[in-house]
């Protein structure tokens, strides 16, 4: 049946948990684009047939006309599905810049196609140039700050560090009460975790 494969593609997208990326389904995607080409060939053949019979392509309402219409509509529907698939994936790809950072880990990169990887880099650069023009880093401060101090647990051996108000020995697994602004860079690098109150 026409359009079934495209529908599967969109269903794949919809069945994913929101904001989760599934691996790019190149195989199914290519099948749908091939289906589009077939529709186009059939459509052209029917239109040529109408023209060969010397009929007006706009006004004729014979079986060939409706056949051509079906192919056109199937093609347009496939296009919408393909675009929806790519566009919604691009949404998630963009959100990764906010959530993961400018460099994606290998397990995520493996799920993207070539163009998506490139898109991520370009979009990331666009965001970076906005932030440097504004002279403001927008990738920090995601939750409203409650307290200037937070409790953190050190995950990696950081060693002796001079903080803004004291020096501290940040040994692995030790728990500290630090200024949020001091702790944030360490948390972002994955060297510390914040302890929930």
């Amino acid at each position, binding site marked *: 049946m026409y359009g079934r494969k495209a529908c599967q593609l969109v269903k794949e997208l919809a069945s994913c948990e929101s904001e989760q990326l599934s691996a790019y389904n190149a195989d199914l995607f290519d099948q749908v*684009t091939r289906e*589009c*080409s077939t*529709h*186009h060939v059939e459509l052209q053949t029917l239109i040529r047939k109408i023209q060969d019979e010397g009929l007006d392509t706009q006004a004729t309402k014979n079986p060939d006309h409706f056949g051509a219409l079906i192919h*056109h509509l199937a*093609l*347009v529907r496939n*296009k*919408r599905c*393909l*675009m929806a698939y*790519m*566009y919604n994936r*691009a*949404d998630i790809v*963009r959100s990764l810049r906010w959530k993961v950072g400018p460099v994606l880990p290998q397990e995520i990169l493996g799920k993207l*196609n070539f*163009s*998506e990887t*490139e*898109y991520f880099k*370009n*979009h990331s650069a*666009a*965001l970076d*140039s*906005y932030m440097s*023009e*504004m002279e*403001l880093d*927008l990738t*920090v*401060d995601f939750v*409203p*700050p409650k*307290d*200037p*101090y937070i409790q953190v647990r050190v995950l990696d051996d950081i060693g002796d560090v001079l903080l*803004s*108000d004291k020096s501290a020995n940040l040994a692995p697994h030790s728990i500290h009460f630090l*200024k*949020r*602004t001091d702790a944030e860079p360490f948390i972002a690098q994955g060297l510390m975790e914040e302890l929930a109150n």
Partner: protein
Amino acid sequence: MASAGSEDGVPIDDYESLIGTTDVELLKKAWRHEKVAPEILRFETSLVQRSREQIQLMEETVEEFAQSGVDPLTVSLYQMDLDRTQFLLRSYLRVRLQKIEKYMFYILKTDLWNRLSEQEQKFAKRCTDDMGKHLDQSVLSKLPEGYKSILKQSTASENDDMIPEPKLGTFVICRSNGDIGTFELDDSDGVPLELLVGDLNILRYKSIKPLVESGQVDLV
């Protein structure tokens, strides 16, 4: 941010209205509106400018206090104030960028474009270019002739029918700032709604859009 210093000698009655017009309150309002409204609103150029100057001033003050040995509690209160303002500003700019990302093609072709700041316009331009390139090479180049447009489904479409638009019909919660009187909603079958000061209503964004823009109602 501390509004201290300016309310000396002001009667209590004026205190609330004074607090309500400090830049922090205005920034908070701009941020709240931007978060609630489905479409992008006008960029608060001068407000953002002023807030940034105040943030810088605060940073200097905090540093000065910390060095000159002012009570740590006072310093930490100032720091907290500063942190909160910075969060507001960052979040405000972030929410706007996310709207631009979402509706870039729509913004680019409508007069919403004029609501963006200069930097946001540059960002939006790059966004659409990158997105266009990505969709082109991954989808559109593989489609047959006549179906390659990013804005139209096919050459048979008269209008651009492939552009994601903000849903202006979403419901928002709003509070009236003054007695607006009777107001005709466009989906209430001619039954006018009376808006009194302080009234809380849940209405469709598009029907109260002019009131939001003129500041007669606040989104909450």
